[in-house]
């Protein structure tokens, strides 16, 4: 198998155009979905991007060959290393997607929607900037505005309602 590595850096490695196009299509669609507001669409986008990258590993493993078993002619088998890597990556992304599904279900349970929420802190700073005011921390006479996430973090019991 050591013999495989040098052949890969030879310029004879011709990328499989079909697979490249499939990768491009999957990643582009995935990116478009991931830019959406809804977490489920983001999740689907991530699935597509992950699959696109899995196909990319088929591109880099070079020409297709026989299954890489011991005893096969080393010249006839396909490069096993990218397959090992992509299998690992697929398993990891499966687990992460599962977790993200659970997260979006919980988000829906809590807020009744699966939209990714606004950044409350960002909005607060923008409002202060628009009003040309300093943060209330500097001016005790000013009515206070505390970040909603710090308030939420103060909540000692993160239990389900």
């Amino acid at each position, binding site marked *: 198998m050591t013999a495989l590595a040098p052949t890969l850096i030879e310029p004879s490695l011709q990328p499989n155009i079909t697979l490249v196009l499939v990768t491009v299509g999957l990643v582009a669609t995935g990116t478009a979905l991931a830019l959406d507001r809804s977490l489920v669409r983001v999740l689907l986008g991530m699935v597509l991007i992950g699959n696109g990258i899995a196909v990319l590993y088929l591109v880099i493993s070079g020409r297709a060959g026989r299954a890489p078993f011991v005893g096969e002619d080393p010249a006839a088998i396909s490069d096993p290393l990218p397959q090992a*890597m992509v299998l690992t990556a697929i398993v990891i992304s499966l687990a992460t997607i599962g977790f993200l599904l659970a997260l979006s279900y919980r988000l829906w349970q809590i807020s009744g929607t699966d939209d990714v*929420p606004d950044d409350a802190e960002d909005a607060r700073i923008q409002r202060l900037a628009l009003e040309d005011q300093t943060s209330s921390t500097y001016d005790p006479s000013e009515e206070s505005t505390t*970040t909603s996430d*710090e*308030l939420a973090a*103060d909540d*000692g019991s993160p239990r389900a309602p």
Partner: protein
Amino acid sequence: MSPNAFPVPDLVPLPVLLPLLGAALTLAFRRSPRLQRSVSIAVLAAVVAVAGVLVWQTDVNGPQVLWLGAWQEPLGISLVADRLSALMLLVSSIVTLLVLVFAIGQGQADSDDEIESETPLTIFHPTYLVLAAGVSNAFLAGDLFNLFVGFEILLFSSYVLITLGGSAARIHAGTTYVVVSLLSSALFLVGIAAVYAATGTVNLAQLAIRIGDLPSGVALVLQLSLLTAFAIKAAVFPLSAWLPDSYPTAPAPVTAVFAGLLTKVGVYAIIRTQTLLFPDSPLQGLLMWAALLTMVIGILGAVSQSGLKRILSFTLVSHIGYMIFGIALATPEGTAGAIFYVAHHITIQTALFLITGLVERLAGTTSLDRLGGLAVASPVLATLFFVSAMNLSGIPPLSGFLAKVGLLHAGIELGTPLAWLLVVGGIVTSLLTLYALTKVWSQAFWRTLADAPRSSETAAAPQEGALVGARETTHGSGPGTGPETTTASAVLADANPRTLPRTMLGATAAMTLVGVLITVVAGPLFAYTQRAASDLMSREPYVTSVLPVEVRR
């Protein structure tokens, strides 16, 4: 000691294996919290010991390498501990151990107080140990793909830890965090694919040899794709916005260990790839600009905040800039300064977040608007905060000062206009850090509670807020919920002080002490980081110890 007296390389996988086995054990013992605690502490203490031996051995005998699974080199997976990895391993294992003690103290105190635990221990221990294993694996990885796996191990346990309990705020924060991490992992995978396609290997030592033969354009693409992936994880400026949004909501010990370790793993990966794979990088200028913007914009974020956790999250981002500065200089002095800064920053940032956890426990909030009188309520806590804050801002003689002087010195030595700009940026950032933390000191610790802008609510509200130690009850903490919905307020110690659990205070004090200890051993430590940096710069010790002669191509 002769190098053959004990097979030191056999120790190399232990920092990964022990926590993983410990995680399995704690999962099996989930019905016995006491057994879980003992297993976790024993495992992490053992990792500290192993890391200590590795630091000593790598310093005496050079990099320790273990090829797993007895494949013919260079096919298998290699674990490599050189001076840099060993030091990172030692600092990170000390931090994980102390934070674990803190978390255990918090869990016990919560059950004593009959408050539902912020850290549900049954899930907490196994996840936390897996996190430790992932961090160790990333530090020890000898190839890019194993580095990726290390990242994924630590990220996955961090997903669980950051959403612990599943409250609305944590789910919101966790969503951002998970999606951003997924994206950076995807980019990392693309980078690995490109590296493999271009060179036919993912082994770092082989890459060090082969990348030099690539056309410069190809090498640049590889470098940029890897740097982008690592910069997201390390929270370098244009890619840092996720961090202050996600870290502050997690439970105190979790935030502390994240702040200390996770971004530093990204910084470690940048140091490793920049020095080993791309020594003649054309991207020094880009990295310097990124460092400058990370420092300055990060600290401006900290100045504009009014929540202690958010201030600290922004200082965390900002100080990543110092490390990138050191890496970007690409001189032995700069790299040594960056390594020293990483060691210093891991301990100090963790200590500050643990202190924040105690503040929250004492006062029920971390919002500066409603804090006051903490110096009276707990002089010990105030002392710890003061020492740590001064240490972070770089007040002499503490290690923060020494770390910054090391970096600034390296910058002045390089002497390019951009390096001078960074030196100025570094000093400004240091001063602004001092400003932000002094603000916390004067408001949360020094003034009386009555002077706090929202303390009036405390006096005027005789309902639940008046209960000493009452936790904040936030009704509907979703987005757009104004502060008006909060009924409870911080109540402080004047009537009936809420004492800080001794274990938590002890762990925090120990963490602060480790920060001070770095000052005491700064001389030897700086010498060590300089040796580590010159190893990294020459690349030869790493490559020769990993690869046997016949596969060194």
